[in-house]
């Protein structure tokens, strides 16, 4: 049996190496790639991203990968967006002007406006409240698990798509899900064992083998 194949979409933004390290640690065949062929062959897609929304969206468009990714999604291949990669799924973002996103999960990326005394960016470890109990993302971690956040903007979406939230004086969207399209605002690749459990949950739901000897 060929190994479960993960494509980490490389569109020239972000800390791809850490995402690759984490997924490789789980034993999957993770490839960082900007090739449409690799997207077509993947059993699961990961869309990472750091930095600002607009350059990320521009680079992703320029990569020519949006079409191939959409084609995979329509066939049920799951996708996990991480940080800005999750925000790109939204309709639009107000970061540095109003910019259109992929629009795959309806919602708007807006600046965090916590009460005074709490600064932005929201950086550090925060515990999440799971709103979608059946979500594969939290199947192995559960409620109250800590993940590492580092962001200034967040994804405001309808309750039907909010998979988890956390509290930073205001309610922050921590994870979104629309069927097999998922996104997390925090960094599972930097969240120690909790992050690996989350990634394992996502890949197992995508049909990957679970832990144990292969």
């Amino acid at each position, binding site marked *: 049996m060929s190994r479960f194949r993960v494509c980490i979409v490389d569109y020239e933004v972000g*800390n791809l190496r850490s995402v690759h390290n984490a997924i490789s640690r789980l034993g999957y065949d993770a490839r960082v790639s900007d090739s449409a062929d690799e997207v077509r062959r993947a059993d699961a897609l990961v869309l990472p991203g750091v*930095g600002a929304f607009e350059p990320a969206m521009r680079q992703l468009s320029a990569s020519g990968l949006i079409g191939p990714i959409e084609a995979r999604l329509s066939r049920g291949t799951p996708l996990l967006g991480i940080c800005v990669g999750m925000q790109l799924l939204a309709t639009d973002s107000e970061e540095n002007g109003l910019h259109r996103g992929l629009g795959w999960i309806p919602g708007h990326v807006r600046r965090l406006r916590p009460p005074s005394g709490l600064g932005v960016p929201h950086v550090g470890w925060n515990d999440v409240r799971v709103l979608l109990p059946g979500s594969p993302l939290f199947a192995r971690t559960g409620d109250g698990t800590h993940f590492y956040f580092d962001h200034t903007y967040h994804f405001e979406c309808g309750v039907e798509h909010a998979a988890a939230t956390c509290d930073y004086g205001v309610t922050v969207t921590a994870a979104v899900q629309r069927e097999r399209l998922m996104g997390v605002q925090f960094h599972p690749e930097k969240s120690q064992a909790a992050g690996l459990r989350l990634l*394992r949950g996502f890949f197992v739901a995508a049909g990957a083998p679970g832990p144990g000897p292969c």
Partner: protein
Amino acid sequence: MLKRRIAAALLVSRGLVVQSLGFGRRLPVGRPEIAAEFLDRWGVDELVLLDLDASREGRQVSVELVARVAAASNVPLAVGGGLDSLSQVDALLRAGADKVCVNRAARARPALVTEIARRFGDQCVVAAVDVTRVDGVLRPWCHLERAPLEVALDVHLRDLAALGAGELLVQATHLDGAGTGYDLELARVAASAVDVPVLVLGGAGHPSHLPELLEQSGAACAVAGNFFHFAEHSVTVTKAQAARRGVAVRVDTAARYDDARFDDDGRLLKRDDDVLDAMLHTRIPREVI
């Protein structure tokens, strides 16, 4: 709720992690990736890797070394040492760093802070500031010229935040290796000067020093270098004592020490014989993720 952070500094000299004493003397600890792996397993909230010689030697922290540390750990990694260009930042982020610390370059060319923030996001830039006391007064300090800066500390910190730094790392150079506790006034001045999170380094020598810093100042993160080496589970034991004092820290490791007893030096005390006897018959399965 956002937790206060306990971070470990990996101070690197000639490719090895060292303990630093008096901002000059160094004692070797070992290979950075091994230290990183242990600290990660012990539940540290963040790693801050600083190349102590890079600025002085006119070079930049090794990308290859950062890649090794990033591969050995699964935790946020901030990296500093002689950085003065966007291409170097890009290379470090690609190697697995999450943030970069700029110190000398932020003074020599403040626009660099803004440029990094624009290109990689403000969460990516940590402005590192060395601080000393001159006649009892806190002053930002230049470690190359070994002289205080002209500007007042709070003004300097506000300037760096305004340039786009997402976090500030203030290091009490006068307490380097002292182990007598943090400079709490420094932490309070820094945390009240800016809105961005403040990380404080310098002076930790006892597990109680870290919660003390977090209780008595608005610092987001207590950073310790020397203190975390050479003691098994040092981070976990420190967090257990912080949590017991009511400081909101993350305790996610399998070993929690929440029912442990500690001596006056903050070290773990042996459990009672009957508890140890009972443990002999407890099977603790290793978690497979």
